[in-house]
């Protein structure tokens, strides 16, 4: 999964960036509905944001790359619901209800939409340990390759950079995506020189940062 096609930083051959003039938020009615269904179905709390990212991304590269953005959302939503018995695969294929509903904790009502969006879902948590690193410290992104969800992009693994920002403690996606708890950890913005990531021929004016949790880093 860490070799999934979603981890695109530094990949070659995808071509030019093409901007659509006066682009609308959605390009088809089904995109509107797929978007809204995904947001509404996050409210019952049957899964968290890291589980929903994992459900979208953990698929064969050719499948990920052949789907449009909201097709991926739709596939992710169908998977999350099927895994939890909310909507079975045979119901999705039949296009109608075949099994009784499962109880859900809450449902998003129209009158609650504005408040739910305004509240959001903050991931900052009260620290229980001091931060291991401070701004200016040299660190290395660990050379890890977890078989499950992670937010450490391949293109920085094994490379050394400098801590630029310290964001406090945040929910750790690698754990949260597995339902193994939030395991909040210190989160840092780590900045890398272009040449460190892309070799000596890289543009010397380029620097790239990622946000990295404590477990992704070691002193350098």
């Amino acid at each position: 999964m860490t070799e999934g096609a979603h981890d695109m930083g530094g990949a070659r051959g995808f071509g030019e960036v093409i901007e659509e003039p006066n682009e609308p938020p959605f390009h088809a009615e089904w995109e509107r509905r797929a978007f809204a269904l995904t947001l509404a179905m996050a409210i019952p709390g049957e899964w968290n944001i890291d589980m929903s990212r994992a459900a979208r991304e953990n698929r064969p590269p050719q499948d990920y790359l052949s789907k449009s953005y909201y097709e991926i959302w739709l596939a992710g939503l169908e998977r999350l619901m099927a895994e939890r018995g909310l909507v079975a695969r045979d119901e999705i294929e039949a296009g109608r209800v075949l099994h009784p509903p499962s109880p859900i904790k809450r449902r998003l009502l129209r009158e609650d939409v504005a408040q739910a969006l305004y509240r959001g879902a903050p991931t900052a948590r009260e620290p229980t340990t001091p931060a291991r690193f401070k701004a200016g410290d040299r660190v290395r992104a660990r050379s890890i390759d977890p078989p499950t969800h992670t937010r450490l992009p391949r293109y920085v693994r094994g490379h050394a950079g400098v801590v630029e920002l310290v964001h406090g403690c945040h929910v750790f996606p690698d754990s949260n995506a597995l339902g193994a708890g939030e395991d909040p950890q210190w989160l840092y913005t780590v900045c890398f020189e272009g040449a460190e990531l892309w070799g000596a021929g890289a543009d010397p004016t380029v620097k790239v940062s990622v946000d990295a949790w404590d477990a992704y880093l070691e002193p350098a």
Partner: protein
Amino acid sequence: MAHDHDHDEEHSELSETQLRVRALETILTEKGYVDPAALDALIETYETKVGPRNGARVVAKAWSDPAYRAWLLKDANSAIASVGYAGRQGEHMVVLENTPARHNMVVCTLCSCYPWPVLGLPPVWYKSAPYRSRVVADPRGVLREFGVELPADTEIRVWDSTSEVRYLVLPMQPEGSAGWGEEKLAELVTRNSMIGTGLPKRPGALA
């Protein structure tokens, strides 16, 4: 990922997806999981209420009010919330200041993380494989595709949004707009200038 905007050529395929989504909505409604009126409200919010004009208002205020600018750079969440914007996909905001020496650009190489409360939903190019793959390795090349050429010695600083922290670029105020009111300044602020793939409009470009 596949292109999202060639729907005319893929009519039959999209009709199938359209039917699939419609059936799914019916199933979820019949099972009591979703309220169709709530779906309408979610769509309406991101089609008509939340978009880059929000961010433009924040930038214009920072350009015209030095105290607000300092607050925005120090505590973006509070400063942005004071103008009324907060919440989903903008829970932890950081504002990046462009200067003559440094130009900031924002990406999410892993998915599509984007500061919704101030910019709305991301455009297709931001979510696309070309942008996500290339901007971290060749940001100047990407800028050229957006028609932006920066001085060769300007530092290009790319921020990959790999956590729930969301980044908003504070572009430099265009010359010739000093003393303008916030409303007029906001007209100079483009969406792309707040992602870092564009620059604000020049005062002469306003009708």
